């Protein structure tokens, strides 16, 4: 039993690709070794920008021996009537190079056959791994692959060395010109100084141009035994384990923040930075406080996304003129590193200030005409046209959701200005600030606060799980923007297929559903028709409203199902509710929650099964062409006591149930409809609904259809998969 280590040495990998690659590596190794019957204890992976590593403990030295059976002719051919071998048997023995007495007869499916059993000794692990490893490496996939040099291998970045050891033994293979061995390379600039990282360390002697030997490239490190790999690499300045690096960075960043009485915390950035270094050392820098007058969002964006610095905030949340960076290496030249980073940030902020001041010279509202020059989507016109549609849709929504006059004025103004920031200079450099920078410019231009807020708000939610728009105008505008985008794209046939979503319509739809689930009542069909009409006549290639809307509703239904699942609604409950229609999403949610709760409530079981029987019977009748044409129930045809009782109960229940349904009190409605369970049972037990007497049958089916129409306002309960089934 020895350890096995594989290290794929590469040029610097994109940070976000390393973890997924390690997961692939682990899965592939586990699977392939299992297929090859090579036992091992535990598999661990680790990685830095320059290496992907898999480490397996207690790997068996070879495959277990096994027996291979080779099938020959059938017993009928191989044995004569007396049970002696025929020439076919001798021939088989000869081709298999065994004595005839070694042949055995075995019964398998299909009859009796001759077999040769041949022991197959297990192959040594090194030999098997030499075959597997290059295949596993070559099969790793990345979001974007490249070629290099004269080779044909595709990988995330060029592969420069391969270390593969089983115990002390090299696992020999080669991949596109790189041969495996026991050589690895430590940190690119050698092991870091041993001193503990300190942000405020005294400046080192600047040694640029000085001691050239100290800066020479990392020397190769020879690994005599797989079990020594991690320790030797650490001594060479590589902290292999991402979790360790992350916690080291976390602690350093927190310490540096605390030293200025502040906090710096950002899990996503922490994860990214973890995969940008082999040996982390954090440092704190400062910038001129005058930059704090620039929009905070812009400063944070530049620090986080452009420079990968942790912004530093006071306990009350205000931004402080500090930042914390993480360098790759030890404390050598740390003062110089800090000064360099400060200079860069200063220049970046200067650029933001230049654009910001230039943008402020033109009030936001005056940017709107310039939107005519920016195409929204090739066949959907310019951003100015979109703006005009947004204003109209906002007016529509303000009518449907009664919004008071001041609220309406704010929403309309916000719609007019919503896209104006896309014509500013800041968008050229920091397009991620759309909306947010619009809010800043709107405030500066003296727009009312709700208008400014709505401009930023209307892009929410950006990703699943994000906060919804916080303001009424923002919510209105977000719905208007999303339905316009979705309707337009669906009308020209740009419908996402599978995971392909080049126009980002999945998040648009998810956001629309999330907002409408919490919003006042609204007809989705009418909203879509309104948005469609605003595009006007678009000529050939423009789909009809019916086709567009049907496709869009199908698309939204998928998002809706996902939301319902998150709320604990089972998929068949969701099917039951959505099959009965979801024109109003808020109500669809309430129906689903009520039905889901009813399925769990003992007192509702009879109601549900009665409703299911009603639905099933009606469907059966319709399928057997014995259904009832629409029409009134005739009192004079109610012959049996049970049907009279049921109809009486129905007339009593109906007005109360309708009121509860109208008020969206679905649990209440289910309770009221439950009063029909007992009379329905009586009917099914005592009356043959599918009577041969057609007028009687039609009349009974009509009673059931009326009852069914009430249940359908909640859902088609026949879609429920009951335990009995």
């Amino acid at each position, binding site marked *: 039993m020895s350890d096995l280590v594989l290290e794929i040495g590469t040029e610097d990998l994109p940070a976000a690709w390393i973890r997924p690659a390690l997961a692939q590596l682990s899965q592939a190794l586990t699977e392939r070794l299992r297929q090859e019957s090579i036992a091992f204890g535990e598999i661990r992976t680790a990685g830095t920008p320059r290496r992907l590593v898999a480490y397996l403990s207690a790997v068996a030295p070879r495959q277990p021996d096994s027996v291979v059976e080779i099938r020959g002719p059938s017993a009928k051919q191989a044995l004569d009537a007396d049970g002696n071998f025929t020439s076919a048997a001798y021939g088989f023995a000869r081709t298999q190079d065994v004595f005839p007495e070694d042949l055995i007869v075995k019964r398998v499916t299909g009859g009796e056959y001759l077999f040769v059993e041949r022991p197959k000794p297990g192959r040594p692990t090194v030999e098997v791994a030499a075959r597997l490893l290059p295949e596993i490496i070559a099969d790793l996939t990345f979001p974007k692959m490249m070629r290099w040099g004269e080779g044909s291998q595709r990988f995330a*970045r060029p592969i420069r060395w391969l270390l593969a050891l089983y115990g002390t033994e090299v696992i020999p293979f080669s991949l596109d010109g790189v041969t495996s061995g026991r050589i690895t390379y430590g940190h690119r*600039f050698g092991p870091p100084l041993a001193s503990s990282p300190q942000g405020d360390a005294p400046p080192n002697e600047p040694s*640029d141009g000085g001691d050239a030997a100290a800066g020479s490239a990392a020397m190769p490190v020879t690994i005599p035994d797989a079990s020594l790999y991690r320790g030797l690499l650490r001594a060479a300045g590589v902290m292999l384990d991402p979790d360790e690096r992350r916690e080291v960075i976390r602690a350093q960043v927190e310490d540096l923040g605390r030293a200025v009485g502040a906090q710096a915390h950002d899990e996503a950035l922490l994860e990214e930075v973890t995969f940008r270094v082999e040996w982390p050392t954090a440092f704190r820098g400062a910038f001129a406080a005058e930059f704090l007058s620039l929009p905070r969002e812009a400063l944070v964006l530049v620090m986080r996304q452009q420079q990968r610095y942790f912004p530093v905030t006071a306990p009350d949340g205000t931004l402080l003129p500090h930042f914390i960076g993480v360098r790759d290496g030890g404390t*050598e030249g740390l003062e110089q590193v800090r000064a360099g980073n400060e200079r860069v940030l200063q220049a970046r902020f200067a*650029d933001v200030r230049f654009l910001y001041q230039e943008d402020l010279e033109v009030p936001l509202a005056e940017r709107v005409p310039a939107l005519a020059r920016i*195409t929204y989507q090739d066949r959907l016109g310019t951003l100015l046209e979109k703006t005009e549609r947004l204003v109209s849709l906002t007016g529509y929504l303000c009518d449907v959701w009664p919004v008071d006059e001041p609220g309406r004025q704010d929403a309309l103004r916000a719609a007019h200005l919503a896209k104006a920031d896309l014509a500013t200079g800041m968008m050229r450099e920091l397009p991620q600030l759309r909306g947010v920078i619009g809010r800043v410019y709107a405030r500066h231009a003296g727009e009312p606060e709700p208008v400014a807020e709505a401009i930023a708000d209307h892009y929410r939610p950006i990703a699943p799980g994000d906060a919804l728009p916080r303001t009424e105008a923002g919510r209105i505008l977000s719905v208007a923007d999303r339905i316009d985008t979705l309707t337009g794209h669906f009308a020209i046939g740009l419908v996402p297929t599978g995971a392909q979503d080049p126009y980002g319509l999945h998040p648009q739809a998810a956001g629309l559903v999330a907002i409408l689930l919490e919003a006042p009542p609204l007809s989705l069909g009418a909203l879509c028709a309104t948005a469609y009409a605003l595009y006007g006549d678009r000529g050939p290639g423009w789909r009809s409203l019916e086709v567009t809307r049907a496709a869009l509703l199908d698309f939204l239904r998928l998002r809706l199902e996902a939301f319902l699942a998150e709320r604990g609604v089972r998929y068949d409950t969701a099917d039951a509710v959505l099959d009965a229609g979801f024109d109003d999403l808020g109500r669809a949610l309430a129906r689903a929650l009520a039905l889901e709760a009813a399925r769990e409530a003992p007192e509702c079981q009879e109601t549900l099964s009665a409703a299911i029987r009603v639905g099933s019977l009606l469907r059966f009748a319709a399928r057997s062409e014995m259904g009832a044409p629409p029409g009134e129930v005739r009192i004079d045809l109610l012959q049996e006591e049970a049907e009279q009782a049921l109809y009486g109960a129905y007339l009593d229940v109906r007005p109360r149930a309708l009121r509860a349904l109208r008020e969206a009190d679905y649990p209440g409605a289910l309770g009221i409809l439950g009063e029909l369970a007992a009379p329905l049972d009586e009917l099914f037990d005592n009356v043959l609904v599918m009577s041969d007497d057609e007028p009687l049958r039609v009349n009974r089916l009509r009673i059931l259809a009326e009852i069914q129409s009430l249940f359908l306002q909640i859902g088609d309960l026949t879609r429920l998969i009951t335990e009995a089934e």
Partner: protein
Amino acid sequence: MTLQELLAALSRYWADQGCVLPVAYDLEVAAGTMHPDAFFRALGPEPWRAAFVQPTRRPSDGRYAQNPHRAQRYYQFQVLLKPSPDDVQDTYLESLRCLGIDPRQHDLRFVEDDWEVPTLGASGVGWEVWLDGMEITQFTYFQQVGGLSTRPVSVELTYGPERLAMLLQRVESIWELEWAPGIRYAELGFHAETPCCRYNFDVADTERLSAWFAGYEAEALLALEQGLLLPAYDYTLKCSHTLNLLDSRGALSMAERAATIERVRLLARRCAEAYLSQREALGFPLLARPAAAATE
């Protein structure tokens, strides 16, 4: 180290690595990649190594000399190595050491960056090289040039000499750099920066530029029809620069911009194809050249 010493040191270093040292191209280009000895040489099977200084124009990057790092005209030190050598990262780091930059005393990082010049149909994969948070080099393995797949793959190193010099001279702004002893960068460049920004952003006549674009495009097509490669390519470069001027004037909607880029890209692609067929007709002569350019 003055800027001119820096450029000389880089030239010396890369000459020692077997690079040809062509001089800068004499038309407005937005990137050293547009130099014919980079763009065309990246195509086809012939090995190539070249290094040169190329003045570069990007009208939209002008900041009226108000930004310490950005200008509408600056320099690139361009290296093209084909095929990309296995030790190219180390060779690059060594070039920094020969400028007196000890990477161990700095934070040197290869931060992933997919590079692209859409007008040339050129794209690649690689990094921005960061030194203490500042981008000092674009480091790219070309995957496509002129819309054609590259085989073998070239690697392109584009140094920002001003940024390196700022670091070495410990100055805060490119305008304060010393080009030669006692001669500042501003002396050579600043007098032009503000007027050029004015022209690029506010003055250039967009109608006339649009008409010229169409004219340059027609000339490029005319030259292509006659198999006149370099004249066709020159007009392609003029189209590209005119497009950039129109862009800095804000004269192009996004759709127009995309369509205009596409027109230049088609020209570049046809030039690339013409180059390849002309070299093929010559039997790819550099394949036969003894390894001088391919290895040092």
